[in-house]
């Protein structure tokens, strides 16, 4: 564990070193400011409440899109993986949505629904559902038929089957979809905010892009990266350890 932390710390220190070297070579804070020059503006933004306000809006959108995409994606993937008929009917749709550029869905949602929260969250959710469904479909195809037979012989009710037989088998797939999902969703949320919202980290990045303020763009980008790393370490990794504890 200590060795792993040391490797992570050294790796991050190496990244900082490259950044400092690049900032020194460019010698233009407008293009690439040094890491320490972000600290002051970061504290100002934090103390004024502007940074937390925009972070909270982005997190709120990420949370909604994540819950919706995982919920619909799991249900869809399970139905497709368990039922070849459903799979045959829905697979072409899945292929279409998997190959539809995120930007197209975002623009269409804004055009059809309007520049509002519903369109923003729907656009992100629709972008992520096909990935979740694809991963969960593979998990559903790999379900143990003997456990299914056991559940049938002992006449386990549907809810019991799902909770104790099916979902635990899907847990590694759900975890994989969740971890890749959260990483993709927050990036799409930023694009959605960039294009059509008046708050959130994406909106702020859009604002500072127009002002050509690289320092503030980096402050908002890194702030949200740290928040998402915290979600990954404190929520997703803990949950993964919990569902895998019977293997140890």
């Amino acid at each position: 564990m200590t060795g792993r932390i040391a490797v992570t710390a050294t790796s991050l220190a190496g990244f900082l070193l490259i950044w400092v070297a690049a900032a020194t070579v460019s010698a233009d804070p407008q293009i690439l400011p040094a890491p320490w020059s972000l600290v002051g503006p970061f504290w100002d933004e934090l103390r004024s409440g502007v940074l937390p306000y925009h972070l909270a809006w982005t997190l709120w959108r990420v949370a909604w899109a994540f819950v919706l995409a995982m919920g619909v994606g799991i249900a869809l993937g399970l139905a497709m993986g368990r039922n070849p008929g459903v799979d045959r009917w829905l697979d072409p749709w899945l292929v279409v949505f998997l190959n539809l550029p995120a930007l197209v869905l975002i623009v269409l949602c804004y055009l059809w629904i309007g520049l509002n929260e519903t369109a923003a969250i729907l656009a992100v959710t629709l972008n992520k559902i096909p990935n979740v469904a694809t991963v969960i479909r593979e998990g559903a195809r790999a379900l143990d038929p003997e456990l299914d037979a056991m559940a049938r012989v002992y006449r386990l009710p549907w809810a019991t089957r799902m909770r104790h037989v099916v979902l635990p088998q899907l847990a590694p797939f759900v975890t994989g979809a969740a971890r890749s999902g959260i990483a993709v969703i927050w990036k799409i949320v930023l694009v959605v905010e960039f294009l059509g919202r008046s708050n959130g980290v994406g909106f702020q990045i859009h604002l500072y892009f127009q002002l050509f303020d690289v320092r503030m763009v980096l402050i908002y980008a890194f702030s949200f990266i740290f928040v998402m790393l915290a979600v990954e370490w404190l929520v997703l990794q803990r949950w993964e350890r919990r569902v895998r504890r019977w293997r140890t």
Partner: protein
Amino acid sequence: MSVSVEIAEKRFGETPVLGPMAFTVERGETVAILGPSGAGKTTLLRIVAGIDPDFRGEVRVLGDMAMVFQEPVLLPWRTARENLTIVHPGLGRAGADAALARVGIAERAEAFAGQLSLGQQRRLSLARAFAAKPQVLVMDEPFVSLDRDNASAMLDLTLGLIAETQPATLFVTHAREEAERLGARLLELSGSPAGLTPLE
């Protein structure tokens, strides 16, 4: 009778695997289906257990059924106790612990089923089958991958549980001595498509 089986035909695709056959199993009686690997024993048992409904014929089962599979088929992510209470919610914690004690793994109640040894998993599988005192029991070569001593101990344990519960037992094996130790009426499954003939 507790189990009545009348099969006209069972096919896998175009290939008939089971031919016409009929037999019954009474409460307290043990019937063993003997036959070499690939004879169709497991197919027959899965039809009786209701796992495979794709056949021509009729199977009637009176009362609650339990099954002991070739592999233990447990929920490895749940504890030994939960493996009983999830399948038989009426047992409660005390009932589950008593069932675990009966098969000799009381001290493993809190262990995840996936962390038990194969012998303990087999015992847990037996506890699950007998915990709710089934009227009908089907067993699919439950001792097949155990060494001689463990298989013998499991056979003794099964004999005791059958004596206490008195279910109608349908038992599939390729080892005649196992069937004879269970005091079973013997039926041989053979031919293509397979049919049943009584053995002395």
